[in-house]
């Protein structure tokens, strides 16, 4: 494979440690999937701890879970699913060579949904929890049954959703950069790798929330007598 042939016309964004654009694309995708595996294990440590404590202290965790409001959790789930759709459509727009305005439109919509998620969480869940005195370590004034176990549950609630929210914030940062790059005409049907791998990250964060919603808000059911 001679140097001259490989260095034909490389699109913008080609990195010279690679021999071909296809190689770079595959490497980028594989790299992002490997990174997501590390994130599975990272969140997984908390999920494992949560699973064990839930098994050992079931009633307390159900009591704690009922302190959370399903309607906010569910709304946030809907919001994130919308953001995943808009992200997928943003990537598709780049793939199919649409105008940059369209790509930016979908990216900004994704960011709006992400910001909406964070806003709802902060204002209607965490702030209210703070006022109600059920934030362990910061404002803990819970007087109900199973207090130690409920505190443990709320610890995990805040850690897990907090870690998730941090990842959302990072995602919003990434999306901002993508908007700027798109505005500067960096992407084309031949080169849209940053959009694609950021999309993988964004969808992953959505999946984590899907599980957080089920495990934190819905365990033990919400039927009368649960």
């Amino acid at each position, binding site marked *: 494979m001679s140097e001259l042939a490989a260095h*034909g016309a*490389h699109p913008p964004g080609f990195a010279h440690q690679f*021999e*071909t*654009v*296809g*190689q770079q*694309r*595959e490497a980028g*995708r*594989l790299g992002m*999937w*490997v990174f*997501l*595996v590390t994130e*599975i*294990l990272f969140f*997984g*440590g908390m*999920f*494992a701890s949560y*699973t*064990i404590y839930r*098994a*050992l202290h079931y009633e307390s965790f159900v009591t704690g879970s009922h302190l959370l409001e*399903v309607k906010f959790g*569910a709304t946030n*789930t*809907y919001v994130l*699913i*919308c953001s*995943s*759709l808009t*992200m*997928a*459509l943003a990537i*598709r727009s780049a*793939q*199919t060579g649409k105008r940059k305005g369209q790509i930016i439109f979908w990216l900004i919509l994704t960011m709006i949904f992400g910001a909406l998620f964070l806003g709802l969480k902060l204002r209607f869940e965490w702030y209210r929890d703070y006022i109600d005195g059920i934030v362990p370590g910061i404002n803990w004034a819970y007087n109900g049954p199973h207090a130690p176990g409920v505190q443990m549950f709320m610890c995990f609630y805040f850690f897990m959703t907090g870690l998730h929210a941090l990842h959302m914030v990072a995602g919003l940062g990434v999306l901002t950069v993508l908007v700027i790059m798109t505005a500067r005409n960096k992407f084309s049907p*031949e080169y849209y790798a940053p959009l*694609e791998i950021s*999309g*993988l990250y964004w*969808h*992953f964060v959505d*999946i984590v929330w*899907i*599980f957080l*919603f*089920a*495990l934190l*808000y*819905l*365990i*033990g*059911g*919400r*039927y*009368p007598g*649960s």
Partner: protein
Amino acid sequence: MSEHTEQGGNAGHVVPVSTYVLVFFALMAGTALTTGVAYIDLGRWNTVVALAIAVTKMMLVVLFFMHAKYATGLTRIVILAGFFWLGIMITLSCSDELTRTWEIVPKGWNMIVPFVSRLF
């Protein structure tokens, strides 16, 4: 594999908008379903159903939004490995945490029963 895909090759499968929209509605429906089922008394099965719906939603996102359906075998192995290792961590930790009170170690398949009943 040492063959490199040629320049411009494997540019990525373009998924039709209709597929995305269908998956979107399936996810929304799944969310509504899991929320609704929580208000029905199914005893132990509430958790099973909630997890099953969550896993289904995850599969939809992974396969279609994250293009795993159109990806190479290597990508699939990577994804499976991640979940498998998470499974190792949870299972083996539980093998201690949930069996502390055992006095006599049950024989054969009976070993698994207490696990299941503690978790669900």
